[in-house]
């Protein structure tokens, strides 16, 4: 099959031997498990859970190790192995998007409101509707939440164990998959936002100025004393791009 094998010596000639070597001496069983996992995940359009793989692979195989090796194998290829919240999927490489997007079906576009609500749900989950409204400062317009549920990116997670038992919302596996996130911790800027206290329902105590005005007349000034807070120090002063 491989006529030029002798010219390109590192192409795997003998499957068993070469694979065993490749898997760091883990043996033929490991190499075979890799092939099996590869086949299972490659065949599926949807991410396959590690649990499901474990059930299909021979007993005693370290699924995580298998998948990590496969991920490396594919790291520089046109197709990559990606992890989505302990599920695995093959996806075309991100840098080839210019090649792919040509004749694809037009995606349904989310409105600005829906997108903003999606972000609120993603970063603040589990979050109730009342909390979403408090953050956005506006009543949820009819159909926006409904629309997000319909996309499959947002789900009802459960109910808050507080009086009134409000339903809590969160994001789904499809959300992570769609936006290319391994897990929720990979949400862009999550750590900075958390550090700045911007993901808390209440204003963090270090957000306000504790010093009461010494001179009451100073308040009559047009300048608000709050502007003196050095929020830069708190990491709140991220440079922003003017987008509208």
């Amino acid at each position, binding site marked *: 099959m491989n006529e030029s094998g002798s010219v390109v010596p590192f192409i795997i000639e003998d499957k068993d031997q070469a694979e065993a070597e490749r898997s760091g001496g883990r043996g033929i069983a490991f190499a075979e498990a890799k092939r099996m996992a590869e086949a*299972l995940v490659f*065949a*599926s*359009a949807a991410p*396959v*859970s590690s649990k499901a793989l474990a*059930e299909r692979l021979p007993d005693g195989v370290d699924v995580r190790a298998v998948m990590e090796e496969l991920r490396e194998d594919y790291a520089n290829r046109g197709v990559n192995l990606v992890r989505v919240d302990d599920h695995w999927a093959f*996806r*075309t*490489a991100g840098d080839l*998007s210019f090649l*792919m*997007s040509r004749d*694809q079906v037009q*995606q349904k576009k989310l409105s600005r409101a829906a*997108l*903003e609500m*999606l*972000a609120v749900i993603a*970063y603040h989950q589990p979050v109730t509707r009342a909390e979403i409204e*408090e*953050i*956005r*400062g*506006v009543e949820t317009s009819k159909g926006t939440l409904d629309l997000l549920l*319909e996309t*499959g990116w947002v*789900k*009802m997670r459960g109910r808050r164990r507080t*009086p009134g038992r*409000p339903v809590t919302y969160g994001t789904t596996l499809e959300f992570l998959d*769609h*936006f*290319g*996130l391994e897990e929720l911790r990979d*949400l*862009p*800027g999550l750590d900075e*936002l958390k550090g700045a*206290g*911007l993901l808390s329902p*209440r*204003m963090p105590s270090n*957000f*306000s100025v504790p010093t*009461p*005005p010494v001179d*009451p007349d100073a*308040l*009559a000034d*047009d*300048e*608000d*004393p*709050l*502007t003196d807070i050095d*929020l*830069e120090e708190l990491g709140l*002063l991220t440079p*922003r791009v003017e987008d509208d």
Partner: protein
Amino acid sequence: MDRLWSDEGPERGLSEPVLAVDVEGFEGPLDLLLHLARNQKVDLARISVLALAEQYLAFIERVRRMRLELAADYLVMAAWLAYLKSRLLIPKQQGDEEPTGEEMAALLQFRLKRLEAMRDAAARLVNRNRLGRDVFPRGAPEPIVIEKRSAYSATLYDLLTAYASQRQRRAITNVQIAKRGVWSLKQAREILVRMVGRLSDWTALDSFLLAYLASPEERATATASTFAATLELVREGALEIRQQEPFAPIYMRLGPKSVEEAGNLP
């Protein structure tokens, strides 16, 4: 609602800023405030809250002068900002349990900052490599039957949609469009919670609410009805009120129960 801020009149002074605001384009009062804050061309942490409040109030005044109807959300925010302004300008009294103007201003900045952060986050999300747009799954998946336990599939969303739509179909639809008369204090308070968070401390908001929520000729009836609503909320435990002496401002703060919870009482 159409364009609400189209200030192209010839009498406009040169010093007055040109503002063309289409309320339809805004996602509520907080969004409008964020827009105004950005117009100050400084970072949110450095904005003048007082100037911001005044700009917003001026906007509301113009809209009202044009006799255009404005959603209650915008009016309640105006009431809160008017109150904030008064707190910023009036020195703090002895034994005053109300939040200081600075605390209120910080709260507003926090909320604006948080909203802006979410907006930026949304933009960053959207610009990621997205499945089906930039990145693609296996185009010709081969059937593997790994996780399909049950032969039937449906999502919770499917289930709820099915339930809601059939019950809705069956409900005799002599639907009447609710008349919105004077806003009750309870409604105003719900909006307030949504927009400015919880009122944890004693707050004398009512006079401000009345000023913005009712036109002058309705003020007397609005006072009566909102006061009645206040008492109702107190009875339900959602609110506590306090008045130092006759005709003094009425102070209030949230009671032990949430508004939603109290509203669910039989």
